């Protein structure tokens, strides 16, 4: 009995990484802000969205990891092979734009969270950028993945700070299962924002590439699926605690809008130094984590899709485009945070617009690919799965286009 459990755990650990990391990076600086704002402004009301969001996230992520395991190819590879160079190029160009603004947002997260610890952004951002760059260029992916997995542990800080705030658990529990729909513009915007930050295009590319990189095969796939589902659930548990702590700390004392995640952290101060510190440390960790993964994932995805040499095991002159893209994303993403008067908020709104265009394309391609028998052989979507996936995708498309529309108006 013990032995069979031990082998089971060992087999799970062997595939641990891709799904778990992807899902956790999903709670990046932008995500934390969105959840904080939701909690601070609406209290426990938005909690009900987390269960449907988790299900949608699982559906989408599962397709990606399955495609990676069965085909042994990345999502951008498959898009290139099935839909041609032009479409791939457009998708890649949009992806670079969206991810660049995400990188900016996360460097802004690094800057503002460290400012809570009285570190100037003119020190934190350049050092952070250099560290991130070196980690990948001088290290290798296997060791980086271990560091990333370790970073996932720090998301626990949100759970602890959520508990320290002593929110109203009964209300939190009720609202987790009771959908509240209000025809209030701000409320609907908030809901769309939550869905939009949770399911993002880059995740699909990263997850599939990571599954391939890890050499997970169709045979081991059952374990990999458990890992993906587990990762998605953990993500939304963290999201739950972020909302709950902001609801308990800020909303309970008077609902209000907050303007960035550090404001949420300060709102936790009355509940003790620890709640505040943990929340800020969590933000720092999430920002650094996402600022590591996003540029790397972007460089990989673009180079694979367009057929350039890629990989951290190659030298600079062997894969120049890969390294330049990676370096530029970090340099630009970090530099704009240091530019006084850079319109970062406008950039993020702009990126949500592009996101609204890109996500539907990627999701539709994914379903088409996951149903392609030549690629997936016996592992194509089942009819029920397709039904669920299409509904998810159509809802996602509606929501992300709506978010894009709202963002266009506020631009």
């Amino acid at each position, binding site marked *: 009995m013990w032995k069979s459990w031990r082998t089971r755990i060992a087999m799970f650990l062997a595939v641990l990484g891709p799904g778990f990391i992807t899902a956790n990076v999903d709670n990046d600086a932008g995500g934390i802000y969105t959840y904080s704002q939701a909690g601070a402004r609406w209290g426990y009301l938005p909690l009900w969205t987390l269960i449907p969001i988790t299900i949608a996230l699982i559906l989408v992520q599962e397709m990606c990891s399955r495609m990676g395991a*069965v*085909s*042994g*190819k990345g999502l951008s*590879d498959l898009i*290139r*092979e099935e839909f*041609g*160079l*032009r479409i791939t*190029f457009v998708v890649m160009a949009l992806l670079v734009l969206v991810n660049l603004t995400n990188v900016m947002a996360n460097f802004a997260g690094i800057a503002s969270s460290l400012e809570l610890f009285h570190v100037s952004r003119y020190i934190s951002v350049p050092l952070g950028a250099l560290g991130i760059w070196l980690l990948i260029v001088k290290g290798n992916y296997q060791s980086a993945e271990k560091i990333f997995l370790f970073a996932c542990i720090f998301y626990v800080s949100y759970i602890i700070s959520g508990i320290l705030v002593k929110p109203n658990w009964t209300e939190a529990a009720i609202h987790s299962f009771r959908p509240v729909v209000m025809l209030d513009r701000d409320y609907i915007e908030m809901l769309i924002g939550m869905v939009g930050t949770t399911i993002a295009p880059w995740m699909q590319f990263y997850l599939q590439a990571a599954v391939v990189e890890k*050499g997970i*095969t*169709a*045979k081991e796939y059952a374990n990999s699926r458990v890992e993906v589902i587990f990762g998605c659930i953990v993500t939304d548990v963290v999201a739950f605690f972020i909302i709950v702590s902001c609801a308990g700390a800020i909303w309970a004392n008077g609902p209000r809008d907050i303007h960035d995640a550090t404001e949420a952290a300060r709102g936790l101060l009355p509940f003790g130094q620890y709640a505040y510190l943990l929340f800020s440390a969590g933000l720092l960790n999430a920002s650094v984590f996402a600022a590591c993964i996003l540029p790397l994932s972007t460089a990989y995805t673009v180079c694979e899709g*367009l*057929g*350039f*040499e890629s990989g951290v095991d190659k030298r600079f002159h062997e894969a120049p485009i890969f390294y330049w893209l990676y370096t530029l994303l970090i340099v630009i993403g970090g530099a704009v945070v240091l530019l006084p008067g850079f319109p970062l908020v406008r950039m993020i709104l702009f990126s949500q617009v592009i996101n609204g265009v890109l996500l539907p394309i990627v999701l539709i391609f994914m379903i088409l690919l996951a149903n392609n028998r030549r690629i997936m052989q016996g592992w194509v979507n089942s009819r029920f799965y397709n039904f669920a996936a299409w509904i998810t995708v159509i809802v996602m498309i509606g929501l992300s286009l709506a978010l894009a529309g709202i963002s266009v108006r506020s631009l």
Partner: protein
Amino acid sequence: MAESLLYFTELLGLPVLDVRGRRIGRVRDAALVPLIHPARIDRFLVGGGWAWLTIRYDQIASISLDGIRLSQENLTPYHSDEYMLRIGRDLLDQQIIDVNGRKVVRVTDVTFERRNFNGNGNGGNGHGGISEDPNCLYILEVDVGIRSIVRRLLQGVIPARWIRGLQRTIPPKSIRWEFCNIVEADPQRRLRLNISHEKLERIHPADLADIFEELGPAEREAIFESIDSEVAAEALSEIDPKMQASILESLEPEKAADIVEEMAPDEAADVLKGLEESTSEEILDEMEVAPESEVRELLEFKEDTAGGMMNTEYISLHEGATVEDALRALRGNEDQLESLNSLYLVDSEGRLTGTVPVARLFVAANGKFLKELAAETLISASVDEKQDDVTERFDKYNLLALPIVDEERRLTGVITADDIISVLRHK
């Protein structure tokens, strides 16, 4: 048109004109029939929608950027042809292996050379009569890199001649057609398309292993099925252990056994340990008796002990042997010479008594006893010694090879420095 080159992107959409210069349709794809000719475009597919026509290469008078002129109009409707390698469908945007550059690349465009074909009477320039343009296309290169990407993105957006002017500023990156190896997972289609993997067999196994790691599982298995077992074995031992297992599991047990037989026994044992027991048993059953028993013996040892690391390929001689005997033994074991450092001396019970560095044989007289050439101190390890201790011993005594003995001090195997390097690297 001065330049004799034509790109596939330019060919696509080119108008096709009949004998009287009326337009029939546009080029939709072009195909090789590799069993007939490895590089000549044999068929052009013309039309739109469902009704495509096929033009044979010998029905064409001329090909230029302005269009394709026919010399003969008996065109047949296109129906899927298993013997065709269609450039647009089967080659463009797919992965192929660059045998010369030893890597997997993705095809962005294909460069043709326009040449005249004067084969069977009805071809040639005589029929069209209007232009001097050649009438046949031969694949020259497969294009990868930025130049071909720009070409493809702009094709149809701005005139082809402008693109040609523009792309001159970008350095080309192409692979000659002879060095391209197409990857096809379906064995029947591989036969019909005359695809062999012989070119791959010339690539160094370590490079070949890198190529395998870049391919998808289906393609990887297809190549393993068809290449020479010895090459496959060498490449397999360089591949990441997890992938080794999935490759062997996907092959037929007989083919897997052929490959495992060709591997060094210690590597074979390591690979088989990574498999599920039923699979490795199946493979062992298919193996020849001699290698099978050697591998089975090695399988008994724990992986992190000297026994699990050692190799059973070594040359041992009786302690009374002379240099002449040693040379004779070497001649009988030519396959081991590449990495041989030492010979081992044993007594009549098989117990290890000495180690002779091979280089000492060259400076010794033929009749000399090997015992006199043996290393001054005899360093060995026992089969159950821990991996870390073995590694330490290599470091301490600066060894290239270490003989391994069993409880009765009988020689059972050898650990070489390359085993130690891979142990250290995987830590």
